[in-house]
């Protein structure tokens, strides 16, 4: 049977506010356990929440970024459940009157097509603390530093039909969050967490199948793998005549397995009701307008500008514009190098690959944008070849030096662009390659292009890698096609 997958996402984003959503404690990551837990965060008897306006500002910014309705009246509710890292015994969240209503985002797929994913709503809520089960010998440690960190939970419609779309959507949301500056987007620190709702149904069927929720996927790679695993699991069950249980599943990215966390039968009745300690929050148009006026550039608008301003391809523009920091890096680099296309190739290519393999963000990049710009400038003006530039890049990355020209000199990477000297090398090399020359001259145009490469290797070797490949090519073509 042909199966069709239906995917919806719930995304928790920690808002980058200085203090917590209902208390004055700092939200800084990585502090000593419980050093950022105030009386309110500890849920001391008699303490009361006071809403943080900045959390509202950031939630509204997100709403504006996805072209959503901003609700003028939003209400906090209590979601009741007992757990040690939830000190009040309830989570303060928004159920029926969220701050952000329905919105839309457009995603781009690898085949070039575009798709609109609908957002059902996004609401404000507080994060829980952390339970630490290791190192306590049969006991559990509770760290309430994170308790009360403001979150928005973004709930999509089930509009995605495969892992590529889900990951593209997740990346797009990450891009919006970091571009608007409402969150730091550090997924490894849990600043952005993804829960994926997955169901399958026979192709053509209207009715949705029973869904499962896979929780807390903190990387795009894990999300892709978790979806593949879950879809496969559901197909296996249904094809064996079984039924899917509505349940919450936990994915283990290291082992690539998932297990059931709790079933619907075990699900809590959260007994939501409006929080009587917090009055409904009323927002007027003027306030929303003031936030709109301060909105930073959004990824889609930036991509369009990159196409316009730098004549980049749609693909390159979207790639570089997605993340605000990457975009800023690219623009700085281009300013120095004066070559947008070449800068784009280096930022999206060598640099991104290296950041990925070292698992660091562009903000932690050891090479400044200006420095990469200088290197690209030296490629552009012919001082160094692309392959030579990679060696320079390597030294810059290790921060052994930050003087591009000095590195090129010291490493002997300066290209020889003296035509006379290069011609002498070509003549010398060709003298020993009579067979290849004959072969080349007997071949047709298409084949010749391929055979040309066979001469470049020895030429570069003879020039100790310093010959300008572009000039070598010209001289070679002239000589061979005689």
């Amino acid at each position: 049977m042909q199966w069709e997958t239906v995917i919806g996402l719930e995304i928790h984003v920690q808002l980058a506010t200085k203090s917590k959503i209902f208390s004055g404690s700092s939200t800084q990551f990585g502090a000593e356990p419980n050093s950022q837990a105030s009386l309110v965060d500890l849920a001391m008897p008699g303490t009361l929440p006071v809403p943080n306006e900045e959390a509202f500002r950031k939630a509204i910014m997100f709403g504006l970024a996805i072209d959503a309705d901003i609700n003028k009246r939003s209400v906090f509710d209590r979601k009741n459940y007992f757990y040690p890292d939830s000190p009040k015994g309830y989570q303060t969240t928004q159920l029926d009157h969220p701050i952000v209503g329905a919105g839309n985002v457009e995603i781009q797929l690898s085949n070039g097509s575009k798709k609109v994913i609908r957002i059902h709503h996004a609401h404000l809520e507080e994060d829980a603390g952390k339970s630490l089960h290791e190192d306590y010998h049969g006991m559990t440690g509770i760290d309430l530093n994170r308790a009360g960190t403001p979150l928005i939970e973004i709930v999509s419609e089930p509009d995605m039909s495969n892992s590529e779309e889900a990951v593209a959507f997740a990346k797009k949301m990450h891009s919006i969050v970091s571009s608007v500056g409402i969150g730091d987007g550090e997924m490894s620190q849990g600043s952005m967490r993804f829960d994926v709702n997955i169901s399958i149904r026979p192709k053509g069927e209207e009715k949705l199948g029973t869904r499962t929720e896979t929780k807390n996927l903190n990387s795009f790679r894990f999300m892709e793998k978790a979806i593949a695993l879950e879809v496969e699991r559901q197909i296996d069950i249904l094809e064996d005549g079984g039924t899917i249980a509505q349940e919450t599943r936990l994915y283990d990215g290291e082992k690539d397995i998932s297990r059931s966390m709790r079933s619907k039968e075990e699900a809590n009745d959260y007994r939501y009701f409006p929080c009587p300690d917090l009055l409904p929050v009323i927002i007027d148009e003027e306030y929303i307008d003031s936030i709109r006026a301060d909105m930073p550039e959004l990824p889609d608008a930036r991509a369009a500008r990159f196409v316009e301003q730098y004549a980049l391809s749609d693909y390159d523009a979207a790639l570089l514009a997605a993340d605000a920091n990457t975009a800023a890096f690219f623009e700085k680099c281009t300013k120095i190098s004066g070559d947008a296309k070449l800068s784009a190739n280096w930022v999206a290519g060598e640099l991104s690959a290296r950041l990925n393999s070292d698992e660091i963000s562009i903000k932690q990049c050891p090479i400044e944008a200006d420095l990469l710009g200088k290197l690209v400038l030296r490629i552009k003006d012919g001082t160094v070849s692309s392959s030579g530039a990679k060696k320079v890049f390597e030294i810059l990355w290790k921060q052994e030096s930050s003087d591009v020209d000095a590195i090129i000199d010291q490493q002997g990477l300066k290209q020889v662009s003296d035509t006379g000297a290069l011609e002498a090398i070509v003549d010398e090399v060709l003298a020993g390659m009579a067979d290849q020359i004959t072969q080349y001259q007997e071949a047709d145009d298409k084949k010749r292009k391929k055979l040309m490469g066979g001469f470049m290797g020895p030429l570069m070797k003879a020039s100790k890698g310093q010959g300008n490949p572009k000039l070598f090519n010209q001289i070679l073509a002239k000589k061979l096609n005689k």
Partner: protein
Amino acid sequence: MFNKTVKELSLGLSQGEFSSVELTQHYLDRIKAKDGEINSFITVTEERALNEAKVADKVRADGNAQPWTGIPFAHKDIFCTEGVLTTCGSRMLENFISPYDATVVTKMKQAGSVCLGKTNMDEFAMGSSNETSYFGKVINPWSDKEQLVPGGSSGGSAAAVAAGLTPIATATDTGGSIRQPASLCGLTGLKPTYGRVSRYGMIAFASSLDQAGPMARTAEDAAMMLNVMAGHDEKDSTSIVKDVPDYTANLNNSIDGLRIGLPKEFFNEHLSSELQKVLQDSIKQLESQGATFKEISLPHSHLSVPAYYVIAPAECSANLSRFDGVRYGHRCEDPKDLMDLYQRSRTEGFGEEVKRRILIGAYALSAGYYDAYYNKAQQIRRLIKNDFVSAFEDIDVILSPTSPSPAFGFDAKGDDPVQMYLEDIFTISTNLAGLPAMSLPAGLINELPIGMQLIGNYFDESKLLNVAHRFQTATDWHTLAPKNI
């Protein structure tokens, strides 16, 4: 000295008749002598009180005295007091030393007053007789042959003031917990408009109904204390941003032409003839000062008790979840796992009435029942509020009974909690509407004090205090004291 009002003590201090240390020692001695029987205090902070009194005397000597400098008083044990046991009348908090001060506590400190200790109360303010306290029942000082309840939940505050163990006390009112004990102990108690006094540091029972106020002998003393307690607090986002008037400024205003409403639903055939007479006499007194009376209708008032007993338990079921044995408060011995820790800590830590209300509340909020109970109760709440809003279009103040009867004996309400809930039948609707209301002594029934209730429009505390003070200027019910003190 112990039967003096705060106003008189303040004058005495300023005229050098006695020092704050002497005054404080006087009350501490009385507590030692009398409270063994009455049990109105859970904690007496003798050393702190004497230190505060010394500081107050120094402040006075330096010429910086304010009206409250050196005046002893007591806090209901629902207010968090830094470094002092704060139990809320519960085993759950039997050993809880608060790490911070409630806003009301801070304000009373800043005013220079001297806190004698923390008064007994129904557990988590749930009760109308002070029988639910983990620290034992409080005896009404008016008890004669038979031991009588002081009312609740602020029964400790009321009994302590009535017995002359403190000149005044703080109290809180969620459904009548200031006014009903004031009625039963012959005192003047005021529940301000919701949002007038900060709830920060006041251990929550039902957040949308709780409000703190004074338990005093006179309207004038109540006004003096409200001057200190009231005001916006940025730590309580439900507290209202509104200037605090001087509540003592208009106490003597004439009430000639004041329009007072009498809700026909409260003056019905169920009202005892004795209480009818007390209220009629009070009405005549106020009429003699020029007030005019008219019958009004609060058509939904019969729904207030059922609506309250959904909303208050619903809120308390969540408010009391933080008492889980994890971070503070009672924790059971040797929990075998997390569920056991929760279940046994809460089972052992909470008393029966508290558990009953948590269960009622959890039930009313649960899936499938929410609309029928919680939502319906909220609808009723709006209707009750609207009743008052329309009534106040043609009147200034409402007069009604406070409690159906004077103080009753322990276990008088039997095993039926609903009988106890009906104690608050006249007081609950003002909490649901968020209106200010007070109770003041209006007469005696079987030689026991009984109060009348005055209900005002939003933020009309000054007017209530004005009417009460005018009444007290012309009557002496508020000066009566129990025989045995």
